[in-house]
């Protein structure tokens, strides 16, 4: 039995089981991740993505520690040198997941807050990557980096990745930590000298100039960057009615207004922001996906797999 009293089905979950409302009932992040990824993978039996990762990709020179069964003896017989065969599943994909845990992520009008959705997505990606024997690291941040989990692989590492993600939620008032995502990404770029994939899960409500600098920095270090912009339905639709006092979650002011009167202008401003992000990502070969917190939670996983199956840039 789960802590919520729900019995996890033995069979692979159905699509509707991946709705945020249902996933939110699963208390443990690890269970959520497994539930989501298994659901996704069960749907991929008919998918063209399945099996691609075990195809031969390249040779590399043998180093002590490599398994002897991977040595390509045909190459040895011709060159008298030891080379091991590398397959896609064995390329030791190095992925860094950066999760925004600033105060703005605490907002949510539905079953899950943006923060809840983001950490679930992050955990699911970690589960998927660990399952594929990739190396996964994790960084959480708000106004500064809060947690660093070094890159490793293996099932045991999954728990060390999920641990920081399961840290307690922010206070109810949600006020406090601002977002310094750009600086965090710059730090990650500096620290990760070896090129890999950097997955950013955030609402991107931060200073765009700093954000773009951090992303550009990552790209300059050869990292593939995937950005999941997580936004709430109410932020995207702004369907509030009646006189409302809006209070900023990051202590950035308050406003009492009649929301319908401001809706068009607000949506226009948000659209301008998102367009600037889209332009930047397009120009810098950064994969950007905007996700509603009401979306099925497999969406991000599928998007990631689709992105990774495409040609490398």
């Amino acid at each position, binding site marked *: 039995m789960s802590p919520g009293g729900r019995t996890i089905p033995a069979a692979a979950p159905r699509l509707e089981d991946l709705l945020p409302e249902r996933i939110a009932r699963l208390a443990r992040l690890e269970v959520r991740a497994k539930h989501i990824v298994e659901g996704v993978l069960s749907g991929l039996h008919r998918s063209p993505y399945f099996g691609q990762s075990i195809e031969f990709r390249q040779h590399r020179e043998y180093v002590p520690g490599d398994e002897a069964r991977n040595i390509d003896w045909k190459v040895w017989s011709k060159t008298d040198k030891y080379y091991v065969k590398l397959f896609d599943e064995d390329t030791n994909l190095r992925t860094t997941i950066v999760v925004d845990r600033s105060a703005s992520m605490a907002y949510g009008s539905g079953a899950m807050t943006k923060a809840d959705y983001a950490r679930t997505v992050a955990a699911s990606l970690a589960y998927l990557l660990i399952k594929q024997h990739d190396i996964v690291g994790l960084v959480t941040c708000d106004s500064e980096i809060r947690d660093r989990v070094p890159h490793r692989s293996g099932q045991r590492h999954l728990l060390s990745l999920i641990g920081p993600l399961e840290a307690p939620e922010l206070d109810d008032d949600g006020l406090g930590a601002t977002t310094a995502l750009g600086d965090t990404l710059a730090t990650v770029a500096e620290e990760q000298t070896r090129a890999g994939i950097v997955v950013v899960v955030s609402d991107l409500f931060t200073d765009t100039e700093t954000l773009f600098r951090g992303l550009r920095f990552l790209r300059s270090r050869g990292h593939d960057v995937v950005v999941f912009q997580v936004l709430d339905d109410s932020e*995207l639709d*702004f369907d509030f009615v*009646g006189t409302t*006092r809006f209070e900023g979650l990051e202590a950035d002011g308050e406003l*009492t207004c009649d929301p319908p009167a*401001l809706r068009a202008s607000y949506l226009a401003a948000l659209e301008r*922001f998102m367009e600037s992000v889209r332009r930047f990502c397009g120009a810098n070969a950064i994969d950007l996906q905007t996700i509603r917190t009401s979306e099925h939670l497999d969406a991000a996983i599928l998007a990631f797999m689709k992105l990774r199956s495409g040609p490398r840039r």
Partner: protein
Amino acid sequence: MSLLEPFFANPLLAAAGAACAAAPVLIHLLNRLRFRRVKFAAMAFLLESDERNRRRLLLEQILLLAARVLLVLLIAALLGRLLVDPATLAIVGQESPTHHVYLIDDSASMRASSDDAGTVFGLAEAVVRRDLELIGKRAAADTVTVLTASAATDGDAILSDRRVEPAAMAELESAFATLEAGYGSPPLPAAVAAAAARLTQGDGRGRRLVVVTDFRAVDWGDRGGPLSAVTEAEAEGVSAEIVAVGSAPGPNLAVTAVRGDFGSLAADVPVRIAVAVTNRSAVAADDVTVSVFKDADRLPVMGTVERIGPGETAEAFLDMAFPAGDASTLRFEIEADEFRPDDTFRVGISVPETRSVLIVDGSPETDAAVLLGDALAPVPGIAGLTPDVITPTALGEIDLSAYAVVYLHDVAEMTPDAAERLAEYVGKGGGVAAIVGPSVSGRADAGRAIEYADLMAAVPDGRKVERPKRPGDESPDVVFAGVGRFAPFAGRLAEYLRPIRVMAVAGSSVRSIDEGDREDDGVADAAVVASCPRPDGSSDPLLVIADAGDGRVATLLTPLDDRWADWSKHFIFVPLIHELTRHLAGAGRPPGVVGDGLTVELSGADDFEVTAEAPDGTVVVPDRSADGLSASIPTETPGRYVLKASSDAGIDRVVDLVVNTPRREGQTELAAVDGVRDLLGEDSSVSIRVGSRDEAMLGPDGGDVTTLLATLAVALSVVELWTAAKLSRHGDRGPGLVGRRFGRRR
């Protein structure tokens, strides 16, 4: 509350509504205080949006709030029955203190029916009553004068320069309880001038003149008349206002004239009476019947007119005969309509056994007088005429008033006194026929020597014009023109004239007198009724008639002398002379109109006792002139008035007069307000108020503002709904951003 009373019929409702005008503001403020809190992440975009739209949103909010407040106020105005009344505005806008003079038009036309207050005069009273109530509420020491048009020139007033206090209002109500419009046409211009004269200049008070009238076109349709007096008052610095209380006239038929030979009326002699009925409405009238009353008795005759078109006049003919009797009144009536005073026309008649006709025989050597007398009374009593024959010398001794007509046959000379009496007789309505013969035409100075020449329609010039006839010439010697009642002699009776032979006529000059000369000698518009044609196409006048004073004169230019003409020998002479007699006798004394007054002349030597009788039979006390030489009574209602004077010396004098409502009072068509404003000119500050405050809500030009207010309310509702919808639906353009772009599968 008193502040609102002048402007609202229901001030309580208006006050309550005005108080409710604060409700939208309160609701708005309460809504601003009651809000829900939302902790929001995308504040930067929200604040940016607010910054960009703050001014527009503020304006829209103000517009919405204003629309709601105005809407409530409009509803309050509708419920409270807003009175956008120029009178109210005029009174409120007056300087303080002010003397208000209200002149009420009490002419007969004000008796027209009104649905609201019985008569138009009732509406006028209501206007004055309400205005005075309004003035009474002013804090200023205003005074009012209220007077009627008929009494204004006499200096009489219902209220004279009085403060509007309960006692004054009680007096006003007491007067209004018995007051009604008259039957006459009081002189409005003089009344307006008299009313304006009451507004003393230089006493430091504001001066306001209000004329309450039915605003008929016949009074106000031109620059003259009362409009001129109002303009003059305005020029004197008086704030002038015309209140038009008349309503558009409905069906209105009027008996406008009665024609008949009442002057030659005699016992049992048939008379044809023509009753003219005018249709003053915009639709045709069918089967109009005319009833006849003699004093209080309805006579068993009735005239009918099948159809009278709008604006047309038609006549109903009644053939009647009356028994001998004292003076009485004939009343011709049509069915009552909205304006009753002109539905009746009265004529006074006197029916003697016979009418005397005086023949002054200037040629006693002939049998002309006998011939004329036989023609007038061929059978005793049958024509109702009794001829008396006298010589010219006796003319000065006879009371001519006893005669219906005087025939002067070949009279060349008479005493100046006789000529003067003859002129006086004609001036008072008598008829004189001068038959010119040898004694006149033989005089070289005929025109100047004949003492009564001024009374002749054609003045002899002394010539005898011979009319030789060639053998075989069968052309008629006497030809009548188709003039008035003599028209039959030009038509179906012409063949009976053909045998008449006229050998000679007196040369004459027919009077052709213009209007200016008419005032000098009282003779006007001579008409040649019959003439003697000549072979060359010219003709000699034979019978010429003319009006003179109140009477009529005729000149026959050939005598009853075989040497001149043989017409007295032909039977056609009898009807011709009777027609001439009836024409000269006229219609008797014409009826007067209300307001004419009736006067009896007295002699200073005798002590007369004078009594008077009004139409309703009541005895009234006449006014004696200061010198005692006359007594008179006013004639204020239609009917017959009688003045009797008797002296100790046994002299009795009786005069009577039948009066009708002036026919012009039946012209109830209203003047066009815009037209009168044009007449006043752009610079004029004279205001015209249409309608009374008893009617519903009135606009500045008298229109009902209920519809206007309701329309405004609807328009404001639309504005309010549109603004509210705009404010609540800003950006309602779909599902917002990132709608289904990312595999949303819900």
